[in-house]
């Protein structure tokens, strides 16, 4: 999660460095291939924005291992959020890019941090509009607990214990210049 809010934050702890992230993604890739017995009908959908980079890296690893480039798409959940009534600033609506039907596909949804579960709920609502998949599995780099909906990940990079006031930020070399997972706390 990349929070560009105005609150001041302080780095508390680095949970994963670049090397660990790479190894974890490789392990997740193997788990996906193992559980699904290969790449048949497999499709990766990354949740904007963190999930997009992770989905792409998983896709590349699958291509290296299985010599197949599986379809991938991007979902933006801004239009499916459940918190319009809170009156908070609206995030920019990004483009959803799923140029194929999801009918009968085996979807692996990818996000960087699993927290309350509301993002994933919104993503599933959005996905169903693109066709009825065989199933949807969820892969996340970090599970930080504090679920508010009955949502769980099928593939987890690392479980991290956090306080509600903490923020878990995943930095990506594509945009932040480095791969790192950090916990930050607010200082007010």
């Amino acid at each position: 999660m990349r929070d560009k809010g105005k609150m001041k934050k302080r780095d508390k702890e680095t949970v994963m460095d670049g090397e660990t992230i790479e190894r974890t993604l490789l392990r997740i890739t193997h788990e996906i291939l193992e559980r699904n017995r290969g790449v048949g009908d497999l499709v990766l959908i990354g949740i904007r924005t963190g999930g997009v980079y992770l989905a792409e890296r998983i896709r590349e690893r699958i291509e290296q291992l299985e010599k197949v480039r599986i379809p991938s798409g991007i979902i933006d959940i801004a239009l499916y959020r459940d918190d319009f009534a809170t009156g908070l600033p609206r995030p920019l609506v990004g483009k959803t890019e799923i140029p194929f039907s999801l009918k009968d596909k085996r979807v692996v949804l990818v996000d960087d941090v699993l927290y309350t579960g509301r993002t994933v709920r919104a993503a599933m609502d959005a996905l169903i509009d693109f066709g009825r998949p065989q199933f949807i599995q969820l892969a996340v780099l970090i599970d930080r607990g504090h679920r508010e909906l009955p949502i769980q990940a099928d593939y987890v990079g690392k479980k991290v214990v956090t306080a509600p006031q903490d923020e878990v930020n995943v930095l990506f070399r594509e945009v932040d210049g480095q791969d790192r997972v950090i916990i930050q706390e607010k200082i007010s």
Partner: protein
Amino acid sequence: MVDDPGRVAARQISDKPTRQLAGKDILGIQEMSVSEIELILDTAESFKEVSTREIKKVPTLRGKMVINLFFEASTRTRTSFEIAAKRLSADTINISASSSSVVKGETLIDTAKNLEAMNPDCIVVRHSAAGAPHLLARLMRVPVINAGDGAHEHPTQALLDLFTVREKKGRLAGLKVAIVGDILHSRVARSNIYGFTKMGAEVHLSGPRTMMPAEVERMGVRWHTSLSEVIPQADVIMMLRIQLERQEAGFFPTLREYSRFFGLNLEVLKAAQPAVLIMHPGPMNRGVEISPEVADGPFSVILDQVTNGVAVRMALLYLLVGGEREAERSDP
């Protein structure tokens, strides 16, 4: 201390910077900033995709009510707003002047207050009097979108025109835009003049002198007496509809003569740039201001304008309805 779960969840979901519109309404391009216009165009890009899906609906404005209050006849604009609202899962109500209490003599203000008492979420208004939407916006707490007020402005048309050009050309700054026709009576022309000049394009006008406003240079544009002067350099040629009533009022002798001097046809187009865009806000008078061959030809983006109109209006409804308002914001 645990935060309100709704806000915590939003913080988790909100991993993008937020940009907002300045006010609660969209009344005219003249008062809008460049960054507001860019926000609307950027947002519209994402909404364009929704209209290409199998299920052309997102739940974003579920339970919201958009009222189309049209005191002037319109099919195209009203339908566009209606489709935009419905694709966002909002409910819509259409009120047209002839069938409304206005016929019984109710004032605009009373009509508005009565509507507001029923708690709508957005009013889209078209009126023959310039400033009518502004009056409503002042009186009502609800967002008001100007769908055309007299000869003053038609901001959503200009926004969809800007979107169309930006999409086709990849930019707006530095382009040369020609607007041709009855500039005097055209709110589309005014909004587009404001819009394109704000975004860094150069606007050139052409049309009969009788239909060119007196101080048009003050708007930062150049006007030319003959069509052939604007065609060669133009990246965009926007033709305006000529109305028959203007002939009866003496603005030009006959439609045929107007067409000969200011109509766009293949012959005139020979002098144009190879990648020129032909635009028209509609409805067209085929054979008068624009020939069928040009209207249906490869340079025409007239139908793209219509498609983009829905996306732009979806973006506006999204940005206005349920948007952050100062009074409602609480500190994190």
